[in-house]
């Protein structure tokens, strides 16, 4: 595992090269075939849980009790979906998740890009401090601060019947404020935006300044359009984080009308208890939107994820 053992590169006699090329190509072909077979097997195993989810979601529940259970369901039972939708308001859950995820995406694109731009392109006294702070924030897991954040939301002054001192009522608990505001700016997105902006040419800014374009105009009209793919990446990553968020919505929402899809699935599990065909239908509903979004915008997701490393 050390770098010391780099392969030695030696020259070969020209006469031998052609024959070698030939055998190399053949070897390459067989090794490609082997690799392909391995990848097919591996990716089928990786995808098997999803297939199982999909199969279970259209299975007739009576098949589950059969011995042995047929692996492939005999017929396609889409009624499972309508039944699941009838048992729990998945449409409301999905709408709530959509609002939450869209808000997270929009707010991050606006505020994180502004900050990222300032850090990358504008010289101001606090810039190094702000940048250091953001990097430090990336390291701080939400789970370590969730209780104080919960208490702050609960004691938000003058909301939900609270006094100026933040007592007496419920603050932002069970409101959209609580769902959206604490996650409106992610320090990681600021960092990501800074990296995107750094790679844009500073000469454009200078030129625009000479042309008398305002600083704000340079940010919004000249430079930001250059990182359009970056905007999409951040929007998608924020959307994904919002859609898949669980603990925070679990803690701050109580009413069914504010419940998001992941919390909805977890609570549906308790209602439907052992009706796995319905549970898998519900789980499919929660998982598929993200999968589809990923398939469409794969490129942008990949860019962001490769830089993040953190789910």
């Amino acid at each position: 595992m050390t770098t010391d053992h780099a392969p030695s590169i030696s020259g070969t006699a020209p006469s031998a090269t052609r024959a070698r090329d030939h055998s190399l190509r053949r070897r390459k072909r067989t090794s490609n075939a082997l690799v392909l077979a391995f990848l097919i097997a591996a990716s089928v195993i990786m995808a098997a849980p999803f297939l199982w989810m999909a199969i279970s979601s259209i299975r007739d529940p009576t098949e589950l009790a059969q011995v042995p259970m047929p692996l492939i369901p005999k017929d396609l039972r889409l009624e499972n979906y309508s039944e699941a939708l009838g048992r729990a308001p998945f449409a409301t859950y999905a709408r709530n998740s959509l609002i939450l995820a869209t808000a997270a995406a929009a707010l991050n694109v606006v505020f994180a890009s502004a900050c990222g731009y300032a850090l990358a392109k504008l010289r101001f006294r606090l810039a190094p401090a702000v940048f250091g702070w953001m990097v430090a924030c990336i390291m701080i897991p939400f789970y370590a601060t969730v209780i104080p954040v919960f208490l702050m939301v609960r004691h938000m002054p003058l909301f939900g019947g609270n006094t100026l001192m933040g007592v007496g009522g419920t603050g932002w608990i069970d409101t959209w404020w609580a769902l959206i505001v604490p996650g409106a700016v992610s320090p990681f997105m600021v960092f990501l935006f800074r990296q995107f902006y750094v790679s844009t040419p500073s000469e454009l800014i200078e030129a625009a300044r000479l042309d008398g374009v305002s600083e704000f105009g340079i940010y919004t009209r000249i430079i930001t359009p250059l990182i359009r793919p970056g905007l999409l990446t951040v929007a998608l990553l924020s959307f994904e984080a919002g859609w898949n968020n669980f603990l925070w919505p679990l803690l701050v929402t109580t009413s069914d009308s504010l419940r998001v899809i992941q919390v909805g699935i977890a609570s549906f599990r308790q209602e439907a208890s052992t009706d796995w065909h319905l549970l898998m239908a519900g789980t499919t509903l929660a998982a598929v939107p993200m999968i589809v979004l990923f398939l469409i915008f794969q490129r942008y997701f990949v860019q962001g994820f490769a830089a993040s490393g953190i789910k």
Partner: protein
Amino acid sequence: MSLTRRTLLAASGAGAVALGGAACGSGGAMDPSVPLDIDVADADLSGAIGLLTPDFVGDDRAVLDDDIIAPFTKRTGVDVSVDQVDWNKLNEKISTGIAGGIIADVIMTGVGWTQPFAEKGIFAEIPADFIEGLGYDESVLVSTRYDGRYYSLPQALDLRFIGFHPELLEKKGIDSAPESLDELAQAAAELTGDGVVGLDFLSGSAGSARQAFVFLLYAFGGTMFSDDGLAPRLHEEPGRLALQWMLDCMDTGAIDYSIQAAEGQPSPFQQKKAAMSLVSTGNWPTWQTMTPELCEKGAVGTFLLPSGVDADPVMFQGGTFISISSLSKNKDAAAGFMKHMLEPDILGKASAATGKVPPTPDIPETEGIRSNLLMAFGLENLPYAGATEGGSAAYMEVRSNLDGIVETCLTGRATVDQTLADMKKLCDGAISRI
């Protein structure tokens, strides 16, 4: 642009003070000392209430919606929205509700839950003359009181005892019910073999490891807490005997820790993979749908858990209790709904669905109740239903940790001595914080 920025900045907390006007008032002062007004006329009820319940899961939910809530809504015009949580998640659901200040108006909990939440001021007091006028048995009412006042009403009892397959016992020549825990252990050992485990005590089809321990604790003459609930008792000699009894049975193979009741599948006892088993009255509806042959007369025998100390046998009493949140902003409707839940025909419908026993002195005569043989046995032996959980305001904290402690002992990861010391430490700590 700068306007929206300022608005959002404000929303981000810095300027929340300035946004006071946008606040939507939903905070209620909690004052548990004001007793409920239980006698508001139906016509004066309005609005909507929330119900938090761990019961009526799966197919039973339709019974709750259509047969229990719908008539109430029709009569009073009050909408009831249901929030269902598993028994395992009920405590944290209530707790996060308390932490956030928003909680369902009507809350259904279990035996032992009333005192902790009454102590925290979460449950509203229920007028004593109303409850005492209902004529419930004192053994049931104990679990509804804290500090001499009432904070909950029993809606259903879940009685637990031992069930057995008569033909399996006959085959081994066992023709009478065990008179002591030693005899039970011996019988279980004799019944073990040929793919059959003697006694299914821990598979979860009738309660958790924690409840199995508490049941035995009482059979050995112990209790969980002192009478005033301020000192633990479960770590004393009966607790040691209870743990040791289970460990000994596991040594002979009579109890198998690794058999588990799979969700939605017949339990080991239903599949006749266990000769004897802890059963609860709530198992009946499951038996009816999955293994109806067990519901025929004589198909399954029952006896109470014999004593380990030459005393009377015992029955475990779990149950579902209704309380009203002191945070409720519609206490009248909540009280109206609580009364509705206790009407004989509603209790009968609930009982038919859940298999649990109505707590009232005059049991409604419905087909579901008449045909439930487990319930009949439980009711016959109600005076023996002395094994209950709780009895201390510190119980909720103990409850959430006791399962792990008992399981740790049963899986050989802690000795009996360590386990008892852990129990004592857990209880002492929890009691010191009330």
